[in-house]
């Protein structure tokens, strides 16, 4: 933590950056909060731990790229997945590489509030402590020990790239690529089901959506100036939270994220009704990998899969 703070101080003092986006302690025990730092002394607020769920890259494109217009050079603290979002931005010509200073941090995985609440049977956690591989959850009248695995986000459990693939500075030890065996297990489980079962799962899950668009708005890859769902003329889909419209919204978003989703889990953490958005995201990711050998955000020199074409690509979607 101290190393990170010092690095940010130095970057600001040396005028290498005008702003640093990072995480600070949140107002609730289980969450951190994004923080925007322009003065070296503010760097003391910075943290990096298992509560840093936000993918801060999203702020580079948010609000019509306002930060980019205001600050010449932006420093941004990233986990592996967040760095991949920046790589994606560069390959999609949204952010110029020389306008960002990427500060990698060694990610050990982020906790999922919903899983923690499940562990406590719904009771409010007021404090959490890490003790080796254990997490101690403390409430008004209880103290529970659980293993880290139990409360890590699903996307962290199957994370292959905890380190930033692209960075200017790296704080701490690299973890290297992790050989995850069952990265696509949730997709395979899903694929094994019959069409009717799959449909039932999807309708059940997405019927709960309240269409607040938190998933879309936290998502770094969702940076369209006008989202198809907001379009009035023509209006592509209904705006009411009817299950059919909800499904269309989520499916189109999924497809629009093909080759663009870095599985950072921001959408899952953001959802106020805790929808399990991941299986379909992951399904599209798997397709991209199998069809085009492409994984989003790993190589800053590689063209985005959906924006390039090569002759030996499978074309069965056209020919049947």
């Amino acid at each position: 933590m101290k190393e990170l703070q010092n690095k940010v101080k130095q970057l600001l003092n040396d005028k290498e950056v005008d702003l640093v986006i990072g995480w600070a302690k949140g107002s609730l025990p289980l969450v951190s909060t994004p923080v925007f730092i322009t003065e070296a002394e503010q760097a003391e607020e910075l943290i990096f731990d298992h509560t840093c769920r936000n993918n801060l890259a999203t702020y580079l494109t948010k609000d019509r790229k306002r930060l980019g217009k205001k600050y010449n050079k932006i420093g941004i603290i990233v986990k592996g997945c967040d760095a991949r979002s920046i790589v994606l931005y560069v390959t999609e010509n949204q952010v110029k590489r020389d306008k960002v200073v990427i500060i990698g941090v060694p990610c050990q995985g982020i906790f999922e509030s919903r899983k923690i609440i499940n562990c406590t049977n719904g009771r409010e956690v007021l404090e959490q402590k890490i003790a080796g591989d254990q997490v101690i959850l403390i409430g008004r009248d209880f103290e529970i020990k659980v293993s880290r695995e139990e409360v890590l986000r699903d996307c962290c459990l199957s994370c292959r790239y905890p380190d930033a693939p692209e960075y200017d500075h790296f704080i701490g030890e690299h973890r290297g690529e992790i050989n995850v065996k069952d990265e696509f297990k949730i997709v395979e489980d899903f694929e094994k089901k019959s069409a009717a079962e799959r449909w039932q799962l999807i309708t059940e899950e997405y019927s709960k959506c309240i269409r607040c668009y938190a998933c879309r708005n936290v998502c770094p890859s969702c940076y369209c100036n006008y989202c198809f769902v907001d379009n009035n003329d023509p209006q592509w889909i209904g705006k009411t939270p009817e299950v059919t419209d909800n499904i269309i919204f989520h499916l189109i978003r999924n497809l629009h994220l093909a080759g663009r989703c870095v599985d950072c889990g921001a959408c899952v953490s953001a959802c106020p009704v805790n929808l399990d958005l991941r299986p379909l995201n992951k399904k599209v990711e798997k397709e991209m990998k199998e069809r085009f050998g492409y994984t989003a955000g790993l190589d800053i020199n590689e063209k985005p899969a959906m924006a390039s074409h090569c002759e030996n690509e499978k074309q069965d979607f056209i020919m049947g």
Partner: protein
Amino acid sequence: MIKIKYEQLSALIDFLTESYQVYAPVKHGKETAFKKISSASEINKSKYNTSLNPKDIFFPQSEVMFTYTKNGIKSPPEQGKPIAVWGLRTCDTKSIRMLDKVFANAYQMPDKEMYKDPYWIARYKNCLLFSFACNEPPSTCFCNWFNSGPYDSSDSDIFVTDTGDEYLLEGISERGIKFLAGYPETSQADQTDLDKIKVLREKAESYMPPVVELSGLKDKLLKIWDDPVWDELSAKCINCGACAYICPTCHCFDMRDEGNEDKGKRVRLWDCCMYQLFTKEASGHNPRELSTYRVRQRVMHKYNYFVENYQQFLCTGCGRCIKVCPVNMDIRQIIQKILTYKEV
């Protein structure tokens, strides 16, 4: 004050369903929400308030205003029995009363038919609100900032205290008193019960945060309306609608047509001032183009504009927005920052 044992709840709910459509907290996916129930077994008993708000009962996220065909316009069917809501918290009840002020008439307007919202009124008319004392308010609660508290029974029809093995029911409004008088179970609460309440109440109140004095908030907001501090306050907001959709008092809505020229319906659905398109005009002009202006609007509406029109804050301190915000925008911190801020 009458008391009923836990196991007698189903009798009460059955009695209620004879003359009311009964709503209560139920499991809704991984969350809890108010839904119509037909028996007590469906009720989700929790120490905390529901994750989704209760406004949906009277002001659904989407509802049909009318249907139309080539032959004309048809209003939606009548509401039927009045609505009773079991399992509200005091903050929830207050939020419903606030919304009634908006929908039953518009603020300074004389009692004019054209300002009445028929859809709200149809549901709200003769409703019976059972609000529960909060024995264990979570750390996100701050209703005590709004002259309320976990045992605030005002605004309830019937105030309910859950003592751990029974419910103590106290009629507060005339309607509530009348209902209890007509209820066959007449086991009266005694001194032991009152003592129990006292203990529970003291414990509950001890969980509340220190009160922040809000009397200066409205004027302070107007003073800093044009101040650059809003850039800082809004910096991390990503402009989703989670706070507004989860909020029991936010009531902005949109009206849309679904269908074609021959047949269809006009629906109204919740909308949110956080969205960029909320105020964008057909010409392309948008008075609230920047996220900063939209965050300011939401704060101003709750703690200044609404107070100007209805003499109370449009916030009950239920803490739901604090829990769901994806970037941990904490309205308590925003309020405190504004109160202590020295304007430029």
